[in-house]
């Protein structure tokens, strides 16, 4: 039972991460560039 709960939590975390990356992509942001957006000055695709 413990294993099932852990696997479900893990699956939920992974789904949430992928979901947030897909959403970011739809918003025109780069899904894996989390880096240093302040530096971009709004001039790149990650904004």
């Amino acid at each position, binding site marked *: 039972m*413990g294993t099932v709960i852990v696997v479900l939590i893990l699956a939920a975390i992974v789904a949430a*991460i992928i979901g947030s990356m897909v959403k970011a992509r739809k918003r025109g942001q780069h899904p*894996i560039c*989390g880096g*240093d957006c302040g530096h971009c000055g709004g*001039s790149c695709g990650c904004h």
Partner: protein
Amino acid sequence: MGIRIALAGNPNCGKTTLFNALTGSNQFVGNWPGVTVEYKEGKYKGDKEVKIVDLPGIYSLSPYTLEEVVSRNYLIDEKPEAIINVIDGTNLERNLYLTTQIVELGIPVVIAINMMDVVEKNGDKINTKKLSEEIGVPVIEISALKNRGLKDIVDAAVKAAKEAKPQSPKHRFNGSVEHAFAHIEELCLHGIEDENVQRWYSIKLFERDEKIQEKLGLSSDVIDHIEKDIASCEKELDDDAESIITGERYNYIGTIINDCVKKAAKGLTISDKIDRVVTNRWLALPIFAVVMWLVYYISVTTVGTWATDWANDGVFGDGWHLFAVGSSDYTDAADEFTANQLIVDGYDLYVEENGSEPTGDFEYPVEDEETAAVDYETASLDDYAAAKAYVEANEEPDPADYGVWVPGVPVFVEAGLDAIGCNDVVKGLILDGIVAGVGAVLGFVPQILILFIFLAFLEACGYMARVAFIMDRIFRKFGLSGKSFIPMLIGTGCGIPGIMASRTIENDRDRKMTIMTTTFIPCGAKLPFIAMVAGAIFGGASWVAPSAYFLGIFAIITSGIMLKKTKMFAGDPAPFVMELPAYHWPTLGNVLRSMWERGWSFIKKAGTIILLSTIVVWFCTFFGVVDGAFTMLEEDQIDHSILATIGRCLAWIFIPLGFGDWEATVASITGLVAKENIVGTLAIIYGASGDVYETMRAAFTNASGFAFLAFNLLCAPCFAAMGAIKREMNNIKWFWRAIGYQCGFAWVIGLIIYQVGKVFTGEGFTFGTIFGIAGICVILYGLFRKDKYNK
């Protein structure tokens, strides 16, 4: 409908600082040109109906640079309801040049004289009332950094926008020039709906601005007619049209300055005095080298290491003593126990190796934890007797007996998983995969934050602007432009905005070359990898981290010289104009905010893409085919893993570089997803065989370790940065050329470091050394061959 207020002004006059203060945004503020490449919008904190637009910094409304085109197009085409012309009060004369053009646009203008705190501190006086009368627009004193006059300036701009009565420019040119303007207006501008902007168009047509001619769709007949008016004026005034306009504007500004500004009599400012040393022809470079060495030394080797040791060994290790209470007592007790245990073990080892007990003093091995170097110490039989008695009488010290012991994340998670009876496979995934991988990356957060504090300080105080100036002097000697160094400065945080910043380089060949070389400078994501190599392979040697930075600069300069001699990149370097801001102490808030913005994105990445990657890496590490069956592997079977199979297919590429094993190969590949992944991957793979650092130390020699570091620093960046390269190159061939060059260059440098480095690290001259020397010859040929394409 809301009100749009545009912030326009020279580079580095404080527009973005004002924008952040007015809107509550956190846009990056930098004191070098090109930080704001496109305009940004935000809502005014005091009234959400008011939209503030931050435009790129420009010196004039001529269409010579990308920033000028972006700003000019916005003002002409989008027509904001009002403009706040931000002026650096410490340099009024130069800033007013743009003002004389902005007031001609037919849009209500309010002037914000920024940095008034500095003006007052310098003892200078600006008569704003008189200035307002002479230019014909409201003038407000502000200090964006100190939040002074901000409400007044927005109120004045909103009032001007609501009244919608553009000022009539007070400045009048020479009679014959005005006569030419009148002709031009009559000839082709009367059809323009907005009468207020006619004067601006006529001036631009007088200056032969081709973009305006195109925009107005003028026929060749009309252009010829205008040309006659201009030529006649030029003949009369004995100068070219553009110089006539510029000269008259500066004459007008001169009278304004005489009437409105009183400068305090003084000699050299403190900034000037510092610059005499810092930008000195001979001292500038050594000072820069020392500064960057100190930055990396403190953030990676000393303070950073203490903090990261706590994070790695405490938070993501066994645990730590709360507030360090009891920590030193425990360390003393543990050291004493270990010292005695080593003597006992040494005695047993002697018996095992010699088949008899020692009859007198005997030697026993002691391994240095940092460097793994094994040293031998001597113990007498009395020492052994005392040590044996101590070990038998005492148990190994328990840290919990010496203070409040906080278990580390892995201990805590393991206890939780055991308590709920979690399956071993899932437990392995969480502990050996996610916690080990993500923990290894997060463990470097303290070092990253300390590095970012230093970089933020150096940027904000004005030193980095000097570095661009210093580098321009060096770059220019090799036919490169100092403009290419700005993206590299920005790239120390993240390569992507660095690549984007190359847009400010007008010369297409220089821009492409800058895109190709920007990511050579180590970004924040590479820092954990640098720190890991320094700690694991080089025993925390202080020179490793700074050398990574200087290797990046070396790669940029070397590549620049070599590429510039090719037909593809030949040509004169683009001119580089930048103003050196006065040195000042940055506010603590700005430095911390800059540090946190960069650091937070690093942490966020660890919780998303790095976490997903560690799951994949763990699966590929602990699953594979053994005896024809796909199964979960034991720790001593990971040579049969999926990852090992993939790594072995590609490992041959790295054999000449000294790290042709599957572990280092797959780490280099996963680094393409995100550079932090190299650390996460190595932590999972090497962690399976025991202590990560010890296993890593055993897998590399000094030469192969540094070659591994150099290759991963210089090769193709992460996928996100590659995407930025593709977008900016806007050409698939150029994209592959850039990636190919980066990987090829990294491989050659790795080859040289390993093959030649072996000679100096005691591994001797081998057949491979010849290839290393050949690599040096190739680089030297590229550097010193005759330049056929440049004058």
